[in-house]
């Protein structure tokens, strides 16, 4: 079935666990944009939501750090963080092992994936789901791109992963939605936490809206690190979403640089051109 939804969103833990540091109106405007995306996924009658995240040493460490990983289990668990710290109760989240296996086999024709029959979600997935599917009852398939431990996944391979995932989604009978989560510029978990390069973010999002492949892939890690911090390496997840549908342009539903949340809070979606039979 052609891909039914492709979006992007932020995942910093502060969005949930430092909520009270931002005035209600401002944070609710962001939360609402995220909730609208959840509604859009349900309106598209998606059967499954693939979340392409940039996880933070919850499942993957430098003993076996895959460039790409995908979950292949009937259920997952999260959050791995302390529940009180994360302010989200630990629970099981449904998966779809059979669909995972079919998607992974197809993705592996083009990009090389580590598959995972077990996965503990960290804030990279739990925070987006908190708004998209607040009861955590919608079937999810986690995917990951290494944005944390160098050598990082090259940008053009992140784009290729999006392409491969699109070919896989188009090949299965299920209706697949995909959301990429990450920061744009940010300096998470450092003394610079709260620093945001808004001009850099807006330039990146302009490239993403145009879905300008060459411009999206032209960043070097050196420049990104200088201008957008180590958190900026997570642009890989948004670039993978761009690779899902090179024919589509993007729309930014929300952008607000909120220092207490330590990230430019973003919600956006591709305007998919295919007609989708409901």
């Amino acid at each position, binding site marked *: 079935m052609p891909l039914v939804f492709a979006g992007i969103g932020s995942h910093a833990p502060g969005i949930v666990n*430092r909520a009270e540091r931002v005035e209600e109106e401002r944070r609710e405007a962001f939360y609402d944009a995220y909730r609208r995306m959840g509604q859009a996924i349900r309106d598209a009658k998606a059967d499954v939501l693939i979340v392409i995240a940039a996880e*933070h*040493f*919850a499942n993957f*460490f*430098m*003993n076996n750090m895959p460039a790409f990983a995908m979950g292949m289990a009937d259920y997952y668990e999260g959050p*791995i*963080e*302390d529940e009180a*710290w994360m302010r989200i109760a630990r629970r099981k989240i449904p998966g779809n092992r059979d669909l995972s296996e079919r998607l992974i086999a197809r993705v592996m024709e083009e990009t090389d994936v580590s598959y995972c029959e077990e996965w*503990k979600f960290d804030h990279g997935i739990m925070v987006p789901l908190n708004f998209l599917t607040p009861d955590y009852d919608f079937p999810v398939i986690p995917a990951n791109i290494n944005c*944390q*431990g*160098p050598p990082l996944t090259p940008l053009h391979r992140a784009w290729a992963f999006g392409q491969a995932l699109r070919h896989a989604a188009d090949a299965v009978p299920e209706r697949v939605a995909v959301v990429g989560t990450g920061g744009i510029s940010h*300096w*998470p*978990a*450092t*003394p*610079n*936490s709260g*620093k945001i390069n808004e001009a850099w973010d807006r330039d990146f999002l302009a490239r993403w809206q145009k879905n300008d492949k060459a411009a999206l892939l032209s960043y070097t890690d050196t420049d990104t*690190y200088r201008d957008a*911090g*180590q958190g900026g390496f997570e642009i890989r997840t948004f670039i993978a979403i761009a690779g899902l549908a090179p024919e589509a342009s993007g729309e930014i539903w929300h952008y607000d640089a909120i220092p207490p949340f330590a990230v430019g809070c973003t919600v956006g979606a591709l305007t998919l051109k295919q007609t989708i039979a409901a």
Partner: protein
Amino acid sequence: MSLYYLQKLLYNLNREPALQARFKADRASVLADYDLTAEELKALTDPDVGLLYVLGVNGQLLMHYAALVGQSWDEYIAAMRAGVKQYGPVRAGIYAMVDE
């Protein structure tokens, strides 16, 4: 290579409640399983979150260790700043503080 094992300990601690319990009860017995330098051992034993930060521990691991040893978010940020002041700039990894 030692930074690898230092971070591996923190990775395992973050994932495993049973190891957290063992670590709280008998820190030394847990530390014996990892290939660590004297400075790394000291930083873990004190615990000195600022020194761990300067040694190059990734913030995505360190923030959970700080919470485990009882630091609030603001105390964690302050500990890293104090570490840089006392021991100098971050020596390895990608989580250095930048000038503001």
